[in-house]
């Protein structure tokens, strides 16, 4: 099977299946959790629930990332905080503001937007890759992390790492012909999309719901967090 044929499969039917499987799986898990229902609230709220939700999101995205040192989560684990932060920023820059990725979004949702120059995206992807490696080493040597890390954590790490490293190799033409590199990148992306609903990588959907629920709890109790 030629690289071209593998590439066509990875960009064609495999991508199609992976995307639908991911959407199906995420919908299943999300509605499954939401439908569990929660206990009746008999207490009179001390503040606005929706205000709490808005505040918690604003703080999470616009305040804490810029003054992280005021938080315990940063002071106790600066490496994880910085590494994790840079990794997520890198993901955002590469997946949303990288030209080839924007064209994928455009073909899927019919909407395009301006992108960053290749060197900027390239450096950010390198930052993401380095952050992932450092976080893996930390996970392997940190006494507490070592105890709570099982195969699932390492499999998830690998499935996220592969699209990043293959994408980087593809941009720099390392390790084969362009279509072979492209095929590897697409296969790793397809595998990741299938793995997302089966693992905790689905947090990128759950995060917003759990944050909203916490926010309304804070709002209800009148706590400014």
């Amino acid at each position, binding site marked *: 099977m*030629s690289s071209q044929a593998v590439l*066509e499969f990875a960009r064609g039917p495999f991508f199609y299946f992976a995307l*639908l499987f991911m959407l199906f799986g995420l919908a299943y898990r999300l*509605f499954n*959790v939401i439908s*569990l229902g929660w206990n009746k609230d008999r207490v009179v709220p001390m503040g606005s629930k929706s205000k709490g939700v808005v505040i918690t999101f604003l703080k999470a995205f616009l305040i804490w990332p810029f003054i992280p040192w005021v938080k315990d989560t940063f002071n106790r684990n600066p490496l994880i905080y910085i590494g994790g932060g840079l990794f997520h920023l890198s993901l955002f820059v590469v997946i949303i503001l990288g*030209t080839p990725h924007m064209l994928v979004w455009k*073909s899927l949702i019919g909407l395009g937007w301006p992108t960053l120059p290749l060197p900027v995206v390239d450096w950010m992807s390198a930052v993401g890759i380095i952050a992932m490696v450092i976080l893996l080493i930390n996970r392997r040597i940190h006494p507490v992390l070592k105890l709570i890390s099982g195969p699932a954590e390492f499999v998830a790490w690998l499935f996220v790492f592969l699209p990043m490293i293959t994408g980087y190799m593809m941009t720099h033409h390392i390790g084969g012909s362009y279509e072979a590199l492209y095929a590897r990148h697409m296969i790793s992306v397809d595998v990741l999309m299938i793995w997302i609903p089966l693992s905790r990588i689905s947090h990128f959907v759950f995060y917003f719901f759990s944050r909203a629920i916490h926010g309304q709890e804070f709002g209800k109790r009148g706590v400014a967090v």
Partner: protein
Amino acid sequence: MPEETIQQSLASQGVSRRDFLKLSGVLAAAMGLQLPPLEKSGLPAALGVPEQISPTEQTILNALETKQRLPVIWLEFQDCTGCTEAVTRSVSPSLTNLVLNTLTIEYHETLAAAAGFQVEQAKQDAMKKYAGQYILVVEGSIPTDLDGSYCVIGGRSAVEQLKEAAAGAAAIIAVGNCAAYGGLPKAKPNPTGAKGVWEIITDKAVVNISGCPAIPEATTGVIAHFAIFGTLPKLDKLNRPLTFYGKTVHDRCLRRPFYEAGKFALSFDDEGAREGHCLYKLGCKGPTTYSACATIKWDQGLSFPVQSGHPCLGCTEPNFWDGGGFYEGQSAPLDRPTITAVGAAVGVGAALGIGTALVNQSKKKAHKGES
């Protein structure tokens, strides 16, 4: 007169010794053979090496002087004659002349003066006379459905004609994407069951000069290579000569610096397009398209599609008609789910999720009731 050597034939047409030497140089360049660098001659670069013949040129010279003329049989099936048109308007007039006139094209439907039974007879005679010696050039794909009845010439199907001609060929060259990989006729849903030559002729090496049309210098260069060395040039995995298909269009593109700098044309008439920025966002397939298009170019090196402002369509690659929209980003997926498919996936997922949650709840209640 196949007994005549190539050099003798050229001489009888009035080609001087000097022009003959020049032709050898052109041939060496066309075949991608390496000429020794100037400094090796021991002369200052500024002086050049007048009248000095490199070893490579000498090899070609010797071959042309001793080898007999090479008969070529050129078959056309499901094609548009574009590759023939390209060859007859090739960049190097001397090279085209060599291939078209000197190498004796014994049979070519477009170029033949005769027609009908006469030309069919001429082909049969040529195949008999030069059995095991001729080069078979195929242009156009071969339909295989309905016993090949989609393309019938002189009452016989293309498959039959190809197999017959291939049996006595010394070398087979598939010119153009159609002959190489099926091309346009093979595009989904491939109503005629079109195939490339190498899918049908499996017992002999088939050189694929893909492209739409094939770059004429690649076609004539390969024919010349066989005429001179008696062997086929080095091929890649898709049987394309590496000399012409070793690098991608993207690798050699004059707009490449704009790609690196992230400067793109977003439409065919915006500022970026006028400034000559990269056409990647307009669907250029250059990064995965192997071809010498960007270096040899067309019309005597005047230009090539990307230079003229049009994204590369990827015409040297198999299945390029089905390789995504021509004006859609190359990274775009080939198969996209419709809104209905997405809705169904999300809907079924949500229904299953809610369903299992409700079942679990009722189980929990029942369990509580028991206790």
